[in-house]
């Protein structure tokens, strides 16, 4: 009798628990509503013919702004419904879940969604079969506009074994990323200089400003191998990762072991000089995040530049120093810019998605034309932003919609009044004459040398990074560091990399 009651009690409480959980699943039940139901709600009168209603889930990272919440339920929803007969739900996750964490869990459990990726994350996920193959939709109408407005090389970067696993977003000039010196033009002019064209002039800039403002930091980073490249070598180096580079000027598939090269020695010596001289502050060795904070608060003279940094970074600095102006300079530049394709971010669709083509149509919509780009990036005209007679943008809200860095397409993007005309012209033509890296589109499969890579990364941060940043002297510290790197498996790693790269190079070069 007693036993029966205890059993009964346990069973009852278990049932109670389960029913409590399943009664309340309004959200997920909604997700599984049959598509027909949404078709019947009358709002798709103008939906394109022949397309069944679909439900899409787009995961974005960062915080959802209030305006984004409003628009995604109203205008965004209407236009997406009208154009591709789909309902889109935007789900926001913390940035830490990008490329792992919950994103991985959602992929592994077969959820139907799409979000963005980079080449590293793509290689890992495709190996596990987590991304849908989007190749069949690339040449059809689904991706037609993206194909026109986004550079072909960017598509190639997201192909593996000839299959397209992600669709690049945006079209942003990004050649020669970090190969230029982003200098504080206002300081440069204050000390009577107009431009920087060599290392000597850069150091002169530092000396003069340092004399006037001893509290300012010189270089606000610890890695200057790209911007100094024009000084220490005639090669046109492009780094594949921290350890390896290729020479874009040579027409071969030779991989260069960066740390073992003469170029590294020359570079390390310049950096040692910078550190001793104080161009790189002493605290950089132990507190490198402080450098970026100093740059943002206008307490540094120069940084590594990209095409967009003069206006992207200006907002933060002008808060602290209203007169600050930023300009890109190349040191003794006579080599073509190297590009890895126009963009490094792309949308992927989860392997279990019911309708991958519709997702591709959605990605296409974001880059379809100026009108839609304006809507998704800036919101409603005259409510969220205004455009003056010169086509300059004034935003009435600071709320971010679909992040503009994600959409950024030089064919559509708008600038605000503070950006000078000549800068816009320079920005739009930034990639002219640039060469596509010979490694663009190559994705290294690190599985055979995973252990070596992990050990090498450890040696890199402990022994090599301090030499590369000038905190330690090359002559007395490098031999030991190299020995550690060799013990960690550098040679095996290079051999594997060279093997995969040569095979790929042979198959892909004309």
């Amino acid at each position, binding site marked *: 009798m*007693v*036993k029966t*009651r*205890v059993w009964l*009690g*346990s069973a009852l*409480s278990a049932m109670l*628990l*389960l029913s*409590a*959980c*399943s009664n*309340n*699943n*309004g*959200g*997920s*039940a909604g997700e599984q509503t049959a598509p027909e139901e949404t078709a019947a709600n009358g709002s798709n009168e103008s939906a394109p013919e022949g397309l069944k209603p679909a439900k899409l889930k787009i995961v974005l990272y*960062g*915080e*959802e702004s209030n305006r984004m*919440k409003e628009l995604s339920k109203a205008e965004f929803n209407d236009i997406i419904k009208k154009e591709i007969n789909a309902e889109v739900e935007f*789900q*926001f*996750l*913390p*940035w*830490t*879940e*990008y490329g792992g964490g*919950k994103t991985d*869990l959602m992929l*592994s*459990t077969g959820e139907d969604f799409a979000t*963005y990726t*980079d080449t590293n994350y793509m290689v890992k996920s495709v190996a596990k079969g987590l991304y849908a193959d989007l190749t069949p939709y690339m040449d059809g109408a689904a991706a037609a506009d993206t194909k026109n407005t986004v550079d072909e090389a960017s598509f190639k970067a997201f192909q593996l074994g000839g299959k397209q696993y992600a669709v690049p977003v945006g079209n942003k000039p*990004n050649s020669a*990323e970090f190969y230029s010196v982003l200098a504080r033009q206002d300081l440069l002019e204050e000390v009577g200089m107009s431009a920087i064209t060599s290392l000597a002039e850069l150091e002169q800039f530092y000396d003069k400003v340092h004399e006037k403002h001893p509290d300012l930091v010189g270089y606000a980073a610890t890695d200057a191998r790209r911007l100094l490249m024009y000084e220490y070598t005639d090669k046109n180096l492009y780094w594949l990762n921290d350890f390896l580079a290729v020479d874009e000027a040579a027409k071969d598939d030779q991989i260069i072991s960066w740390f073992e090269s003469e170029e590294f020695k020359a570079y390390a010596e310049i950096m040692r000089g910078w550190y001793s001289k104080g161009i790189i502050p002493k605290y950089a060795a132990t507190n490198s*995040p*402080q450098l*970026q*904070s*100093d740059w*943002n*608060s206008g307490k540094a003279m120069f940084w590594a530049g*990209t095409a*967009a*940094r003069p206006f*992207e*970074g200006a907002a*933060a600095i002008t*808060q*602290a120093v209203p007169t600050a102006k930023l300009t890109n300079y190349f040191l003794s530049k006579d080599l073509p810019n190297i590009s890895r394709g126009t963009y*490094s*971010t792309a949308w992927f669709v989860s392997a279990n998605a019911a309708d991958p083509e519709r997702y591709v149509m959605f990605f296409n919509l974001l880059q379809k034309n100026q009108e839609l780009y304006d809507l998704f990036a800036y919101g409603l005209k005259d409510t969220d932003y205004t455009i003056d007679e010169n086509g300059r943008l004034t935003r009435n809200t600071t709320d971010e919609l679909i*992040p503009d*860095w*994600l959409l950024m397409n030089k064919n559509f993007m708008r600038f605000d009044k503070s950006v000078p005309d000549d800068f816009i012209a320079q920005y739009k033509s930034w990639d002219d004459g640039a060469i596509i890296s010979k490694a663009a589109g190559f994705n290294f499969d690190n599985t055979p040398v995973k252990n070596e890579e992990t050990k090498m990364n450890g040696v890199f941060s402990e022994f090599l990074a301090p030499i590369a940043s000038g905190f330690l002297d090359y002559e007395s510290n490098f031999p030991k560091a190299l020995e550690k790197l060799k013990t960690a498996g550098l040679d095996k790693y290079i051999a594997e990399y060279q093997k995969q790269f040569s095979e790929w190079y042979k198959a892909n070069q004309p």
Partner: protein
Amino acid sequence: MPNQENRTLIAFFYLCIGVFALICLAPFVLAVSGSLSTESRLAAEGYSFLPRGFTLETYTFMFGSKAEQILRAYMTSVIVTVLGTVCAVLVTTAFAYVITAKGFRFRNSFAFLAYFTMLFSGGTLPWYILCTKYYHLDDTLAGLFVPYLMNVFLMYLQANYFKSIPHEVIESAQMDGAGHFRIFFRIMLPLGQVGLVTISLFYALQFWNDFYLPLMLVSDEKLYTIQYMMYYMMANIQYLASGTNAQISGVTIAPPLESAKMAMTCLTVLPIAVLYPFLQRYFVRGIIVGSVKG
């Protein structure tokens, strides 16, 4: 009457405890002072026990754009903590009662099943599938506490209190015709009160501090808890400031970094800091009583 030697010893112990208390208090003082300092001076000069360049800017920044969300998150946290604690205590004590009930033949098997989960777990992926695909806990309020309804360690703690209650009490109740429900609610729970308070406090702390369940199971912003909001904010700030995103975004932003962290810490710690002194004795007494009698 303590003699001179004892007095010296006691004074020494007080000194040790005092120093230890100060060491424990220091981080909180730093957090409060950090939250009231200006970001630039904090970055340049580091933390101090008195605010550097006193300002309420960080709190204004946080409440300015997010007052409504913060209040809602507070509400959700309170609801989850109260509801979660009540349910968890009920489930835990019921289980503890079952495995201590003398007449129940399978009580050891049940105890073993619970114990087994202390040693081995199924892993995150199966857990996630179970919660989302089978129990449909995603985006529900239940999802914020149901997965934590039974902490096996606390269940054993409670079982120990129950074991310390003389069996004769239960037997006499049974003779008078009381059933298990009556014994459980009228005898075991009142007699195991100290343990009950202890595990309630542990559960309450756990539910208040948790950000994992919202991270995993919730995407609807209305269900964010205050801890998850803090986690979300910190995760974004750190990720964006670390520069690891340069590859994908290349965007430079400058959020109030250290001071924002400290302000959010103060906001989340506040309720616990206010309540803890009043409840602290139960923690200590509960654990000691359990250990001696158990």
